């Protein structure tokens, strides 16, 4: 989905609020959320793609205003409700107030029928697919051209794995893009390497 989470290349943001001694956690509840979602994954209540997608499905104003761990919490609660582990009413009764959840999911999809094996040096184009469900193709590479650097081991296909759709595992390709291809005349000179699933790639003649 072309969601608000897909931030790469968006303009208008200010300086990174960096400190060399930055912490991973600021509050005790953040550590508990991090553990609880991990426990749910361990117990097989949901997988990492479902978890990521439930964050992406948060109402955009909620997504942008929530901290990282509030997004984790919202995904965890949404999936526990959707999977029938805990009714929302029980969560709200226990919390003593409203418990905002992510919005419903749209359908997923299986692997592309035209998957190809690529080798280092192959020139590829990213497909121009627009899908309503989970996808791990950042919008800034859609339709763009790059060069294959290497192949990864096969992973579950996220577009299917986040939606309970049957699919084969497939490799990702480390594809190197130039920022002048991604944002012509509007980016710092650099290369951007993206792990692109095989189903998102086409060979360039």
């Amino acid at each position, binding site marked *: 989905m072309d969601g608000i989470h897909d931030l790469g290349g968006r303009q208008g943001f200010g300086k990174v609020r960096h400190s060399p001694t930055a912490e991973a956690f600021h509050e005790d509840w953040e550590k508990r959320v991090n*553990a609880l979602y991990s426990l749910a994954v361990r117990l097989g209540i949901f997988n990492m793609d479902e978890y990521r997608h439930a964050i992406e499905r948060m109402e955009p104003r909620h997504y942008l205003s929530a901290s990282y761990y509030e997004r984790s919490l919202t995904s965890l609660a949404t999936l526990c409700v959707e999977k029938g582990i805990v009714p929302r009413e029980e969560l709200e009764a*226990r919390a003593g107030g409203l418990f905002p959840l992510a919005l419903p999911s749209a359908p997923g999809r299986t692997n592309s029928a035209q998957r190809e094996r690529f080798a280092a040096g192959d020139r590829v184009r990213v497909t121009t697919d627009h899908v309503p469900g989970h996808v791990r193709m950042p919008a800034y590479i859609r339709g763009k051209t790059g060069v294959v650097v290497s192949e990864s081991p096969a992973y579950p296909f996220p577009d299917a794995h986040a939606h309970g759709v049957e699919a084969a595992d497939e490799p990702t390709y480390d594809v190197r893009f130039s920022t002048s291809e991604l944002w012509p005349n509007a980016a710092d000179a650099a290369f951007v390497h993206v792990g692109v699933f095989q189903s998102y790639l086409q060979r360039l003649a």
Partner: protein
Amino acid sequence: MSDPGLAFRSTASVEQRVDAIEAAFDARGLEPAAFIDQAMRMAEEEWVPQRGAQVVAKAWTDPAFRQRLLASGRDAVAELGITMPRHHRHLVVLENTPTLHNVICCTLCSCTAFTVIGLPPDWYKDLEYRARVVRESRTVLREMGLDLPADVEIRVWDTTADTRYMVLPHRPPHTAGWSEDALASIVTKDAMIGVARL
């Protein structure tokens, strides 16, 4: 006594919401408290940059290990007792040189090799870094205190799949002859993300 219907019109605090999930898990016999204790210990003792620093120091002093690390990161860090979650099937180690600088990010969420380089710092997960570093890498690095010479090539690695990355920093010339422990002591999480050079 207030109307119980009214109490439900405001959003519960995040702490109350976490308590609610934990209590719901507990009521179902999922034993969240023990798992939380264990995860907190892991976060403090295991998922820390000192692990990755040890990997870097060994790569700087042991050329055969460096070769194995660059060829197959996951297997090489396992030699030092560092495990990665099952779904992190691949660790790619990115070697900086005087003329090449690598930096990692995750524009879609905030994925990291947290069992190797430590849990991601707050700014790594924030909107600014995720939005800007792929497009304005040189500017963002300069703002963060790393002003790279114009002839240094920048490569930004966006963690869009479950392959994980870590930067192998360039060894500072003044450290010739140092022990592995002394070398490890100067390696920071920022350097393994690639927003600092040593």
